């Protein structure tokens, strides 16, 4: 579909995607066409979760979304979470708890954890495990990641008073 274009709304901004092959994944289009490389790709088959984005309120693997079908969708990537360039509470808790080693899995996890805490502000340990069961980390052994999520959860509860 050269000469044609479609529009994607990513982090509240409309983008025109031109001269693209229609079968491209959203992961590819975000990274290679829209200059948003925060979303990572590893397996391109839905197994690792490093490409997780929020689409219409659901956390999905962007490698499994055909980008040209994502028109009219509200897409949020890891770049769209921070406000005024400040890290979010979840990002900060990952730093504080040492939940980042090589960092490759981190953007997908940050998106998945935001999605969890926005729906369920007080998840149990089991609910945390379940929510990030689609995000693979090959470095940390998950202990510090769980700790980071607990810290973010508890801080949100404390802030609410």
């Amino acid at each position, binding site marked *: 579909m050269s000469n044609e274009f479609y529009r994607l709304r990513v982090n509240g901004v409309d983008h025109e995607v031109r001269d693209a092959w*229609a*079968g491209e994944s959203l992961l590819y289009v975000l990274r290679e066409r829209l200059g948003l490389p925060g979303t990572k790709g590893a397996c391109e088959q839905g197994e690792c*979760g490093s490409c997780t984005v929020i689409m219409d309120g659901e956390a999905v*693997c962007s490698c*499994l979304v055909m980008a040209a079908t994502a028109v009219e969708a509200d897409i949020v990537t890891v770049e769209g979470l921070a406000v005024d360039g400040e890290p979010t509470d979840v990002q900060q808790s990952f730093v504080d708890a040492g939940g980042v080693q090589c960092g490759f899995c981190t953007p997908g996890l940050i998106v998945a954890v935001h999605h969890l805490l926005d729906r369920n502000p007080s998840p149990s340990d089991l609910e945390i495990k379940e*929510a990030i*069961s*689609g995000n693979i980390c090959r470095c940390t052994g998950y202990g510090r990641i769980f700790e980071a999520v607990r810290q973010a959860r508890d801080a949100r509860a404390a802030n609410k008073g």
Partner: protein
Amino acid sequence: MSITNATTIDEALAALAVNPKARVIQGGTDLMVEVNFNRTTIDSVVSLRRVAELRRWHVDDDAHTLRIGAGVPYAEMERPPLCDHAPALAEAARTVGSPQIRAAGSLGGNLGTCSPAGDGLPVLSALDAVVHLRSQSASRDVSVHDFMVGVKRNVRRADELIVAVTVPLVTGFQGYAKVGTRNAMVISAASACLVHDAVAGTVRLALGAVAPTVVRARGAEAWLASQTSLVGTPMVSEALAREFGARAAAECSPIDDHRSTAEYRRHAISVLAQRLLLRAATGSATALRGIRQ
């Protein structure tokens, strides 16, 4: 390559009528893997992502049936209120992939792919589901048993959409159990769905990943009915359950492949069928412990 982003079923059917070679995409969790790895050449695509009609489900209280749109994601099946109407489907949905996969994947896609390891399919088989197919010129209802014809083969015609499935609302225990190499994110090496109809006095058992399609263990079902009354809470001894499992295992035709061996699969079926029957007898549903749905 062209894309039709349909917003209604009619619009999608019109696009398929013009070009039956077009590939349908709903959640993309099967199709995009093929696309990403160049395992398929695609001429054009009809996307159902924005077809709201396919995302609906409803209960018909008079007919005692539940109709689920082909595009309803697993994430919805595993949660209330839908999970209460088809508990085995909810259990199966909870075992699919990861939260990201369950947010996108659908029964339309599970039926479209028609893998014998598809986790929705044993449930549809055990419930004797009807698959509703529609083309621009006609509609037809096909029993799920006739819909699945081989490994990744079904009777859908190229210009047809799977629009929904209908299953009966059954009084009695129903459950789904699956074995794989680990707990999360795993395709079934063997699976089973058991539905006990306490009013009709029947037990139906469907087996996954142990034959070219999902199959029913009709011999084991009939044998069980001849051994004990299945009206109300069935009386099931350990020995009876073991024999039921052994008979179910004898009815499947598993193969060795990269996921498992025929021998292990047969053994797994005997254990799964036995456990599900004992659960039916004790009435123990397995809510996901500690997880609020």
